[in-house]
């Protein structure tokens, strides 16, 4: 049986808006295919893990206060995470996780939280806590090789700028900044996004892109994933696409 190993970082602190649901989706889809999915957790004061031994590192979103709490700890992990990323470990980052991999995050009170600086973007929250990008969002991404519409829910104050390669084009909602055209950041082995919902719940192609990537790490011959019955998930997404895109 093929095994994939995931490190879920700060699950106890960064778990707003059902972000842990993403892990449930991945493990559900692995189980259906007979792929063993091991999810280890790392949090503040855990023993320093061997980041490179994981196929995927996952970080969710949290409130400002929690983000401040973890940022110091995250910086201690910098070397290990950079090495893992260079070794091809997949980074899946939601909201706060996304922001903290950039250069910095400046919160509504002007406090600057240092990011890992793995990528060039940076995030600034507006002075008023009331100004947030909140609502359903639809983007179109080409990450998987063909255009896929991804539906989620965004809720962020931070405005992320200086993104070189975006996750997708915004069809409905805000994206990286208020009323912006693009959403998230991505590379072959990185998805960083503001999409909660949880993000993977009704976007099976994105889950499978990551699972396929993980399964094929270190393999000489390409392993394809067995197709699953995603009728419910796709119907679910279609209902939202019909509602959001047709209302324009």
């Amino acid at each position, binding site marked *: 049986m093929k095994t994939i190993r995931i490190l879920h970082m700060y699950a106890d602190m960064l778990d707003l808006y059902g*972000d842990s649901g993403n892990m449930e989706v991945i493990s*559900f889809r692995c189980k259906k295919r007979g792929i063993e999915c091991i999810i280890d957790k790392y949090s503040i004061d855990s023993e320093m893990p061997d980041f490179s031994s994981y196929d995927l590192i996952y970080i969710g979103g949290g409130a400002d206060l929690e983000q401040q*709490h973890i940022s110091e700890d995250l910086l201690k992990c910098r070397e290990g995470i950079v090495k893992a990323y260079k070794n091809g470990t997949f980074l899946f980052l939601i909201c706060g996780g996304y922001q903290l991999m950039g250069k910095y995050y400046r919160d509504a009170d002007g406090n600057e939280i240092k990011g890992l600086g793995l990528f060039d973007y940076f995030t600034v929250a507006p002075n008023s806590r009331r100004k947030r990008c*909140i609502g359903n969002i639809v983007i179109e991404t080409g990450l998987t090789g063909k255009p896929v519409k991804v539906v989620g829910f965004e809720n962020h104050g931070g405005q992320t700028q200086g993104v070189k390669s975006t996750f997708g084009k915004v069809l409905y909602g805000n994206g990286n900044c208020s009323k912006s055209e693009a959403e998230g950041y991505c590379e072959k082995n990185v998805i960083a996004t503001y999409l909660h919902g949880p993000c993977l719940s009704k976007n099976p192609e994105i889950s499978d892109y990551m699972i396929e990537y993980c399964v094929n790490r270190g393999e000489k011959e390409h392993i394809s994933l067995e197709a699953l019955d995603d009728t*419910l998930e796709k119907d*679910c997404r279609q209902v939202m696409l019909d509602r959001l895109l047709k209302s324009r």
Partner: protein
Amino acid sequence: MKRLLILIGKIIVKLLKLMHRNAGNLPGIVLWHLSRHKAVSMFKVDCPIIAVTGTNGKTSVTNCIAQLFERSGKKIIINREGNNLDTGICSMLLKYCDMSGKVKADYLILETDESHVPVVYSQLKLDTLVVLNFFRDQLDRNGEMETLIQKINGFCKTFEGNLILNGDDPNTARLGRANPHNKNVKYFHAEPYAFATKKIFEASEGRFCPFCGEALEYDYYQYSHIGKFICKKCGFGNYEPYITARDIDLEKPVFTAGGHTYSPKLNSIYNIYNMTAVAAAAKLYNIDQDITDGVINSYTVKNGRMENFMLGGSKATLNLAKNPVGANMTLRVMNEMQGEKELLFVLNDNIADGLDVSWIYDINFSIFQRVTRVVTSGTRAYDIAVRIKTAGYDPAKIVVRPDLDKAVEELASTQGRKFIIANYTAVQPTRSALKRYIAKHGGNR
């Protein structure tokens, strides 16, 4: 100016009445604008005000406290329609005040939305604030949990009145330290019930000490993050309870509080907490014990809070779940019950629900026991179906019926015990659909 505003407000209330419309928020919203956002400041209230806030249980506790005074022969004013924002409270006071804005009563008992506590009570003098709990609820409306607690904490810093706090919820208990000079902080507490756990069972808030950041340690969890906690580093959680619920037996159901035994009608742990808060208020205001007995032992709820219906020959229990905690509680009650059952889950994403439905991933569906079929409905019928599927439930046993009447018919198409969970804006339409079904096919409420 004040008199003019009150006159305008009263005219709007009258006009709405002539049009057979309930006043609701509208007069308050108009006055809110005219008074530059100080809608409640124009009222003169000399009697004590008791406010009840928290995520879950506000309506129940407000009603019970009101009854304590009502049955004691006092004249009370209460916001019964659940108008718990500043504008709603303003609309309600407009109906009761004279032309100078004077409100005459012995007590005002006001259910108050968590985010509106500072706004309302910076304008009206508060005698007692009861804080029940803070859970993740409609986050996208209120901003983040911590911001909300900070707001109320800010208010408590200068508040010197009575503060009745749930001592088993770190999110509310922390308010007791906001003003070190306030001698009137009173905690209510409950000893473990039969289903209390050593480990946390459901997604929750407040796992860390708000004062020193240390992980909180729990003797037991009653549900979600509610339980006996302590911070080993700074001692947060080490307080002397004002009143303690013990010998809780939900089978009967009975419990003792302040040395007196009660037999409430509702058999959930949350009701025990709510009623303990009521007992704390009764103790504080020296309510006659017979009256307190009468209130606590007779309190029951309709409006979709553990409300029973007969669909033909099948018993169906409807419960409102605005958030994961509410949903998890219903699932627990369902699981603790023997025999097979079916579930209808109605999920809407209207503005009042919070547009975001991701909270359904904080519901612990993996504990489903003897659930033979699930029907889903509401504007997000598919989302809840996908969620239940992802938890490992057989998708072949899930039926999606976005239309509520069809969903109820589907649910009632088989015999046996039924449970229905509906979120905020889904509850009333679900009740109506159930009543329509009963009218057509038989059964009763």
